[in-house]
């Protein structure tokens, strides 16, 4: 069963965000990392890049597959987790901790509130079979 921390918000693309004022950290969920398998490469944007809601901001590659990652909220990238370049396995080992991808300053700070709660995300996962 996938680990789904209660204090985070979730997207149907299996991203999570952690809200801190008008800045959110974005990563992928335990379910997403488990589906991908061993992560070996991550392509991330640069600080200052701007993304709309549900825009692809990078990609995660496992041995077998590549998967795009999307911004669940619109805004500007204010920090990038460069440490993942050298240790992509963190995405598998600790998807909610060290393995955040980027921090985004939200254009509409309320946008994260509209995302799924932990309970709603769990229901969504169950409904996907």
């Amino acid at each position: 069963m996938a680990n789904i921390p209660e204090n985070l918000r979730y997207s149907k693309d299996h991203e999570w965000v952690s809200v801190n004022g008008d800045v959110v950290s974005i990563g992928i969920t335990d379910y997403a990392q488990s589906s991908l398998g061993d992560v070996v490469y991550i392509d991330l944007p640069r600080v200052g890049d701007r993304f709309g809601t549900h825009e692809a901001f990078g990609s995660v590659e496992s041995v077998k597959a590549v998967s795009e990652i999307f911004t669940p909220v619109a805004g500007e990238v204010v920090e990038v987790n460069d440490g993942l370049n050298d240790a992509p396995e963190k995405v598998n080992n600790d998807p909610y901790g060290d393995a955040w991808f980027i921090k985004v300053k939200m254009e509409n700070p309320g946008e994260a509130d509209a995302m799924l709660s932990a309970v709603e995300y769990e229901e969504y996962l169950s409904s996907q079979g």
Partner: protein
Amino acid sequence: MTETVLKKTPLNRLHRELGGKMVDFGGWDMPVQYTAGVIEEHMRTRTAAGLFDVSHMGEIWVEGNDAIRFVNSLTTNDVTKLSDRQAHYSALTNDNGGVVDDLLVYRFGPEKLLLVVNAGTTDKDWEWIASHKEDQDVVLTNASADYCQIAVQGPNAVAILQPLTDVNLDEIKYYWFTTGRVDGVESIISRTGYTGEDGFEVYAAPEFAEQLWNKFLDAGKYGGEHGILPAGLAARNTLRLESGMSLYGHELADDISPLEAGLGWITKPQKGDFIGRDAITELKEKGPKRKLVGFEMIDRGIARDGFDVYVNDKKVGYVTSGSPAPFLKKNIGLAFVPTEFANIGQEIKIDVRGKLLTAAVIETPFYRRKK
């Protein structure tokens, strides 16, 4: 929507118990990986041992006075060169010299050969082979359902298998085989594999599959830090790719000549006539226009199957297999390029989702085990 019922090997239940992530592989319900994950399964096969269920492969018996002549007329390698209990790698070719399938040919005797073919092509191969029988003195048997096949691969393979059999494994050389008992079960023990490691492929009746599989796990100290690991299709693919081996449907296909795919060493037109020989001889004289090369990514990024290859801003070829190489820790692949660019050190560009990334042609196999 039609519901397709996936075929199952006799080890299906155990794969699920071991946490195998099951996928549809050419109509077979197979584990792509287990709980350790593809990288660990790959590494353990290189450093200790990996256990693979390859029961989905097809087995076809060819028996009778004309057995050798018949198989020689269908395949590129020279069957007359095989001794009893010896096997070789070969290809079934069509009239155009393209590859119907790649296979192993085992010689049990002058009138008895076993062909081991790919799972996804077993039906196609069977029809192809049967359709060429004509009036030759051979009996063909599609025995695919009569065998499980389990591969024990890696430097510990002998140590794992030897205590389970009276057969002296040291006497079986690479690409030779014997028959004997493994844990009391009548088996074919073949020193072959698809990983680039030393190892064995054990064939037995399917009702003994679980017994043998569990014995191999126990003997290999599964669960221990340096113990054997069950390994899925994902590791099987990265292991064979690191070792520069072809996968049917990728490096080999009906419209690809073995000469283009670097299989000149199993293509023997001088042996006499076989299907596709004229086309192959002609191509050999002219020289193939394209060749399979190995490459290593120079830029950060992973080339995947089907990505386009560019030289001087012109699209010139495509990637047949591309992946991270877990043991070598670089991103590698195989690609078809025009012969003029098939030289070691040639710089190529690969279109990775819209970005042209630099790669270099390097020697294959990418990985070669230390003897």
